[in-house]
C-alpha cells in the first residue's frame, strides 16, 4: 500500500501522540492511580501503535521506495514500536506488583513519574520537529538523554534505599515489587532514548548533506 509523504508524516505524528499518551498513563500507574483503567488504556495504545506501524511497514516494504529516504524512517518506526511494547510490558508489571509496594512508594516514585511523563512529551515533540525544525528536534533529544540519566539514577537510588531499609515478614515481597517496577520503568525510558537517538542520526544525516 503506497502512502504519500503527507500520509507518512501524519502517521508518524500520530505515533508520537500515542507515545505521549502512553507516558501519561504509565506515569499515573507509577503513582498507583487508576491502575486497572490505565492498564487497559495502555494495552489499547499498544494495539493502536501496531496498526499505525503496519500501515507504514506495508508502504516501506514495497520496491518503489528510495532506500536513501526510507531506511532511517523504517528504523524510527521500529524504535517507536519498541517503546510502546515496553510501555505495555511495564503496565503489566505494575498491574501485578502494584499491590505489594511499600506504603511510601507513591511519594518516592512521584519524581520518576513526573520525569517519565516529560520524556514521553519530548519524544512526541521531537518527532513533530523532525519534519519542520531540525535544530529544535536536536535540543529535545538532548533533553531526553539528560532526563533518561536522571530517571536511571532515581530508580537505582530507590531500589538501593529499599534494599537497605525494608525489614519484616513481607520485606522481600515489597522489595521484589519495587525492583521489578523500577527495572521495567528504566527499560521503557531507555527505549524512548533509543527513539531519540534515531531522530538525532536522521538530523545529522539530512542536515549535514
Amino acid at each position, binding site marked *: 500500500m503506497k502512502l504519500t509523504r503527507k500520509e507518512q508524516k501524519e502517521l508518524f505524528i500520530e505515533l508520537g501522540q500515542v507515545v505521549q499518551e502512553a507516558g501519561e498513563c504509565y506515569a499515573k500507574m507509577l503513582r498507583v492511580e487508576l491502575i486497572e483503567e490505565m492498564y487497559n488504556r495502555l494495552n489499547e495504545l499498544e494495539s493502536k501503535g501496531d496498526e499505525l506501524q503496519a500501515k507504514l511497514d506495508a508502504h516501506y516494504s514495497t520496491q518503489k521506495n*528510495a532506500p536513501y529516504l526510507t531506511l532511517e524512517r523504517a528504523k524510527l518506526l521500529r524504535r517507536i514500536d519498541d517503546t510502546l511494547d515496553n510501555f505495555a510490558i511495564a503496565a503489566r508489571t505494575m498491574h501485578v506488583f502494584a499491590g505489594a509496594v511499600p506504603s511510601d512508594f507513591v511519594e518516592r516514585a512521584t519524581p520518576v513519574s513526573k520525569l517519565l511523563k516529560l520524556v514521553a512529551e519530548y519524544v512526541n515533540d521531537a518527532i513533530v520537529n*523532525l519534519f519542520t525544525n531540525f535544530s529544535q528536534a536536536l535540543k529535545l533529544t538532548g533533553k531526553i538523554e539528560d532526563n533518561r540519566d536522571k530517571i536511571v539514577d532515581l530508580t537505582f537510588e530507590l531500589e538501593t534505599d529499599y534494599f537497605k531499609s525494608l525489614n519484616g515478614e513481607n520485606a522481600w515481597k515489597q522489595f521484589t515489587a519495587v525492583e521489578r517496577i523500577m527495572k521495567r520503568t528504566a527499560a521503557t525510558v531507555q527505549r524512548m532514548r533509543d527513539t531519540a537517538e534515531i531522530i538525532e542520526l536522521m538530523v545529522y544525516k539530512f542536515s549535514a548533506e
Partner: protein
Amino acid sequence: MEELVILGSVAGLLAIAIGANDETWATVVGIRRLSINQAVVLGSGVLLIGAVTFGFNVAKTVGTEISDSPFTFAQSLTILITVAVLLIIGSWKGLPLSTTHTMVGATVTLSLLLGYNVESATIVKIVFSWITSPLIGFFGAYGIMKLILWLKKKYVKGLDDVDRLESWFITILLLSVTLTSFSRGANDVSNAAAPLMGVFIQLADQSGNSLYARIPLLIGGVGMGIGLIIVGRRVLKSLGNDIVTLSPTSAVAIQFSTAIITFVAASLGIPVSGTHILVAAFIGTGKAYDVDVNMKTVKRITISAVGTPFVAGLGVLLTWGVVNLFIG
C-alpha cells in the same frame, strides 16, 4: 558485400559488449525512480537515438579524420577485434579500460604502421579533450555539489524540506541521466562504428543517399541497446543495489556534470571517455563533502587512462600480424 556483412557483424557484437557495460542508468535504478526493466528499455531507445543522430560526428572523427586513407576490410577487422579483445580482458581483470581510448589508440597505431598520413591536429584535439574532460568533470561536480550543500544549509530545516528537495532532484537526475545516455550513445557508438564509417560515407556519396552513412551507427545503436537489455541489466542491478547510500542530490551532481561534458563533446565530434568523466565526477563530489579519496584508485585509473592507447597500439600490432596470416 560479404566483407561488409562480416565487419557489420563484428561491429554489432562489439556494440553489444559496449552496451552490456553501460552503467549510466544505475543511479535512477538505485533510488528506485525506475525499475530495471523500465531503465533498460528507455536506455536502449535513448542510446539508439543518440547513436544515429549526434553519433555521426564522433564516428566520422574517429573513422575518417585520424588518418587520410580509408581502411580496408582486413584493417577494419583488425581494429574491431583488438578493441573487443582488450574490452573482454579489461572486464575480466576488473580494469576500468576506456573503449574510446582503446579505439583511438588502435586506429592511430595501425595508421602509422601502414604509413598513412595521421592528422596530428585531430590527435591533438582528441588527446587534449581526454585530459580536460575528466578535469572539467571533477571541478563541475565539485562546484555543483558545493552549490547543492549551500542550498541545503540555507533552505532545509526539516524532513519536509528534504523530501521536497529530493523529489525535485529526482526529476533533474532523470533528465541528466537521459542526456548522458543520449550523449554516450553518440560517443560510444564510434567505438564500434568508426572502422565502417569510411566505406559507408563513400557509399552515401556515390549513391547520393546520405542515409547510407548512418547504417554503421544504426548497427552500433541497436547492438548497444541489445547489450543493455540482455546483459547490462545485471550491471544496473548490482550497481543500483550498491548505490543504496547515494542520495538523489549527490547523484545529480555527478550525473549533471557528466551529462553536459559528454553532450558538448559529442556535439563537437570529439571522442571522450564517459567512464573517466564519471569517475572524475564521483571524486569531485566526494571532495565537496571533504571525504578522503582513495588516491591508490585514482592513480590506478590515471595510469590505465594514459596507458590504454599504448596497450591498444601494441594489441593492434599483434592482431594485424594474426589477421594478415589468415587473410593475407
